[in-house]
């Protein structure tokens, strides 16, 4: 630790780390300096001058912006002198010259730094009598973001965010001086996976979201802190509701995880909570008709099935369960059947991962402190967006980046090396001797490495990942972040004994070994590559119980369909993220109709069946989940609710994943998912559905030639199935590779182990004739 420096602020001695900005050092010592442009997570620009303070210099006292001035030893600072006050009044008077002051119709009013600071530091009146500048009132800069340029105070927070943090600078200052405005390039909207963050950090109401616009007043909002379960990052969030309706999600600055940022899917994919199409009453299928049924009747009918404890039960669990839900199912299965049980996770890419004795598991923060990051996983920008931001941050700080294709191309523009088709085959195998790759020699050998390793596509064999890991392990000081991307996967790892994936489900499950199947928050028929097989398996089973928010392709096959409370704001529990950090899931709004939490359902069922369980409350399930951990360090509610643990508690565990390798991909498909798809929750969240999930594929140049594609569209044909899609050419793909995003309806229905016929669509030519 380097020496501290001492400074005198307003007559008080304070201590600070050297190289800190004055505004930050003061803040840490409890002295608040007003600001607009400065943001802890962005580079300082000194745009707004709101943070002026007086500093003693050899030439007398001087006004300096505290957000661009570093502390030095024996610095003498005044943040409250008359001169400072005059400066603050001046700055605010200037800022308000062109500000429309339309607070009554502004979403920001009530939580607006401009309002608040004008109140606290402003001059009280304006001398400006001229006409203010005018702009067209809000313009759409993307499907979901609106910009009111009259309100903008030109702090450059939004533009810096998009440039420095998310790396998609599609908004910028246009013009100069009095004419300056933020805008996009014509016909090039602000299409960013992270655009919602700019709305959150805008210090005025210039940037607003269609999602929250005119919905509520900040003083009417109820709020609570929770964890996003959109992917395995587990970003810290604040939920906002008004009149029992969830209205907004904000990012919370959790230094170890998301540092305040969220992806737009995490931010806006809550709107489905308020959808009218949600399941609100239990349904039972009678002669292929779904009829409403009382939940008590469901319990008694199922109690009948499990009464003798000999029932063969299996579980197919989604990733939106809380750890307590998982434990409830585990307890249930232990009581019902004596033999060892497997739990099938709704993941068509589940693989054993790297958790062995010789593996040192990484934390997200290790990215910043390593010499290089090596990535071989699904496309992180699409699947774990905020982890992608953390990688960008590390690279900005000088960490080297080595990326293996064909996924993660989104990282290739900041990567020091991208190993494309020369190194990685169509089958996702490394075809070269790793130790002979020159860049690996330079950047990896003998260095501190964080390796983000996972499975890029369902049919990829584990051999190459293992090979890469072994190389890294014996040639560098490496830590591994296993890149499972789905929601609370790590919670399942932590709480369930024996987890398997969908390919095992397909191989294992049959009428013989399953009388009763629970499908919880999972739509493998609508989403996974094993769609057809899973469908026919489910249809062959005696009793299938689905718990879900919506009726969808899988849940509609069930004999009983139970409406489920959402993990987003409708129940309490815990969530474990990619680095085994467990944090709180909290409840803010009542859960609609007769919806129940998964754990409630399963414990009530056991009660009904007369099975005694000790874990019949949320607290007991929570304790049970972590009973093997040292009690002071375990993430039980009592510990998590301590202020010092709000950011979560890390307990690394070694999961037992007994998934078998599946490398039957003869036909060279690369199957992945894009951030936005058309799952039921996405379809019922307006913002997300606006962002589009058009059906498209990416093809290599070879494929274009081979199938003679010219019109921008083509049709994929296999047996009865025909899907017309647009295609994009990806020059870095090896010869015959075709990328198919399966989180679009129909596209997952193909059998990817067989040939799919591709025919050019005549759409364009036909149009040209007329």
């Amino acid at each position: 630790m380097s020496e501290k420096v001492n400074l005198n602020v307003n007559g008080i001695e304070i201590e600070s780390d050297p190289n800190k900005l004055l505004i930050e050092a003061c803040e840490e010592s409890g002295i608040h300096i007003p600001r607009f442009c400065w943001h802890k997570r962005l580079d300082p620009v000194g745009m707004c001058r709101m943070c002026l303070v007086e500093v003693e210099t050899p030439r007398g006292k001087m006004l300096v912006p505290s957000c661009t001035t570093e502390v030095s030893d024996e610095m003498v600072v005044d943040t409250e002198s008359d001169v400072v006050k005059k400066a603050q009044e001046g700055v605010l008077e200037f800022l308000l010259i062109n500000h429309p002051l339309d607070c009554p119709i502004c979403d920001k009013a009530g939580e607006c730094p401009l309002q608040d600071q004008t109140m606290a530091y402003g001059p009280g009146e304006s001398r400006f009598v001229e006409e203010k500048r005018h702009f067209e009132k809000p313009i759409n800069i993307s499907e979901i973001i609106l910009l009111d340029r009259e309100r903008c105070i030109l702090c450059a927070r939004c533009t810096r965010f998009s440039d420095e943090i998310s790396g998609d600078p599609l908004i910028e200052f246009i013009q100069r001086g009095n004419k300056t405005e933020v805008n996009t390039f014509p016909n090039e909207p602000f299409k960013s996976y992270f655009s919602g963050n700019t709305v959150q950090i805008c210090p005025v109401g210039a940037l607003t979201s269609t999602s929250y616009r005119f919905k509520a007043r900040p003083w009417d909002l109820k709020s609570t802190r929770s964890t996003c379960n959109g992917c395995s990052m587990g970003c810290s969030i604040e939920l906002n509701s008004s009149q029992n309706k969830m209205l907004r999600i904000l990012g919370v600055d959790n230094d170890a995880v998301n540092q305040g940022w969220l992806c737009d899917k995490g931010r806006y994919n809550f709107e489905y909570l308020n959808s009218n199409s949600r399941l609100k009453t239990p349904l039972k299928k009678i002669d292929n008709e779904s009829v409403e049924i009382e939940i008590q009747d469901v319990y008694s009918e199922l109690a009948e099935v499990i009464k003798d404890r000999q029932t063969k039960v299996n579980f197919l669990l989604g990733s939106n369960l809380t750890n307590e839900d998982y434990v409830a199912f585990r307890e249930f299965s232990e009581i019902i059947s004596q033999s060892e049980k497997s739990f099938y996770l709704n993941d068509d890419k589940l693989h054993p991962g790297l958790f062995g004795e010789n593996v040192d598991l990484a934390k997200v923060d290790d990215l910043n402190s390593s010499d290089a990051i090596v990535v071989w996983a699904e496309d992180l920008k699409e699947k774990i967006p905020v982890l992608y931001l953390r990688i960008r941050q590390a690279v900005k700080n000088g960490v080297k980046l080595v990326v293996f294709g064909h996924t993660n191309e989104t990282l290739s523009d900041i990567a020091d090396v991208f190993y494309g088709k020369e190194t990685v085959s169509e089958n996702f195998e490394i075809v070269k001797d790793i130790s002979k790759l020159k860049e690996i020699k330079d950047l990896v050998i003998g260095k501190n490495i964080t390796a983000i390793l996972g499975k890029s596509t369902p049919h990829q064999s584990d051999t190459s990942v293992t090979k890469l890991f072994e190389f890294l392990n014996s040639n560098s000081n490496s830590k591994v972040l296993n890149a499972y991307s789905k929601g609370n996967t790590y919670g399942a790892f932590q709480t369930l004994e024996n987890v398997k994936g969908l390919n095992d489900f397909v191989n294992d499950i049959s009428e013989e070994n399953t009388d009763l199947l629970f499908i919880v928050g999972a739509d493998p028929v609508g989403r996974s590559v094993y769609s057809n097989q899973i469908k026919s398996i489910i249809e062959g089973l005696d009793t299938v119980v689905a718990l879900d928010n919506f009726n969808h392709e899988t849940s509609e096959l069930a004999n009983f369909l139970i409406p489920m409370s959402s993990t987003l704001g409708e129940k309490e529990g815990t969530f474990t993220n990619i680095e085994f950090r467990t944090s709180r899931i909290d409840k803010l709004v009542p859960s609609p109709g007769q919806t129940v939490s998964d754990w409630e359902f399963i414990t009530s069922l056991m009660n009904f069946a007369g099975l005694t369980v000790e874990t019949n409350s949320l607290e007991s399930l929570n304790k049970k989940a972590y009973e093997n951990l040292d009690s002071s360090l375990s993430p039980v509610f009592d510990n998590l609710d301590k202020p010092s643990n709000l950011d979560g508690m890390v307990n690394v565990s070694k999961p037992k994943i007994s998934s078998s390798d599946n490398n039957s991909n003869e036909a060279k498909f690369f199957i992945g998912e894009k951030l936005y798809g058309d799952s039921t929750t996405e379809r019922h969240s307006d913002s997300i559905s606006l962002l589009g999930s058009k059906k498209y594929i990416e093809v290599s140049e070879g494929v274009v030639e081979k199938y003679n594609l010219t019109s921008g569209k083509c049709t994929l044909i296999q047996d009865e199935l025909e899907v017309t899609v647009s295609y994009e050419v990806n020059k870095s793909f090896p010869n015959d590779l075709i990328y198919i995003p399966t989180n679009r309806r129909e596209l997952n229905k193909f059998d990817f182990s067989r040939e799919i016929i591709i025919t050019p669509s005549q759409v364009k030519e036909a149009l040209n004739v007329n």
Partner: protein
Amino acid sequence: MSWDDKLLKQAKKIIKLYPQKRSALGPLLHLAQSKDGYISDDSISVISELVGITEVQVKSVSTFYSMYKQEPTGKYLLSVCKSISCEINNSSEVINKVQEFTGLNNNETDEEELFTFEAVECIGACGGAPALQVNYETVEGVTPENAINLCKWLKEIKPDVVVADEMQENFGGIKSFDWAIQDNSGATSTAPGFQTLKTTKVKK
């Protein structure tokens, strides 16, 4: 891309002069200006691709500087200085006369697209005030009458290359400095004449 091969080749040459591609932005914008007489959105797209930054970032730079025009200009951009030294030496009359002759307000272009008029801040020729520029070629010591004569000449002859020295000799007066070098090269468009950009030509 809407730039022809010749222009693209030129652009690539310019980019090579800089350690980072994006540093070539300024000269590339001049090149775009010389092509269309303004910075078109089309050119912005081309440049964005060439230097690897987004279109809006290019637009941000191009709209910051007033010499990168956002609207098409005429064949001749008449920039008359309105700053203090010129003002003291009767530039307002020069401005009036030029406006009268061309019928243009500030920042306007006539219908034939011959002239664009602008009153500008100091163009660094205070010693020879009042001064004006035709396509950034400077003429000093301009009387109101001579300003009209200059405009008439441009309108009549429509030279493809305008050369400062030539105009100075025919329409100018006192000069700030005499560089004592005969310069026969001049601007070919409403962008400054740079040799490296090939926006300058020698007048035979």
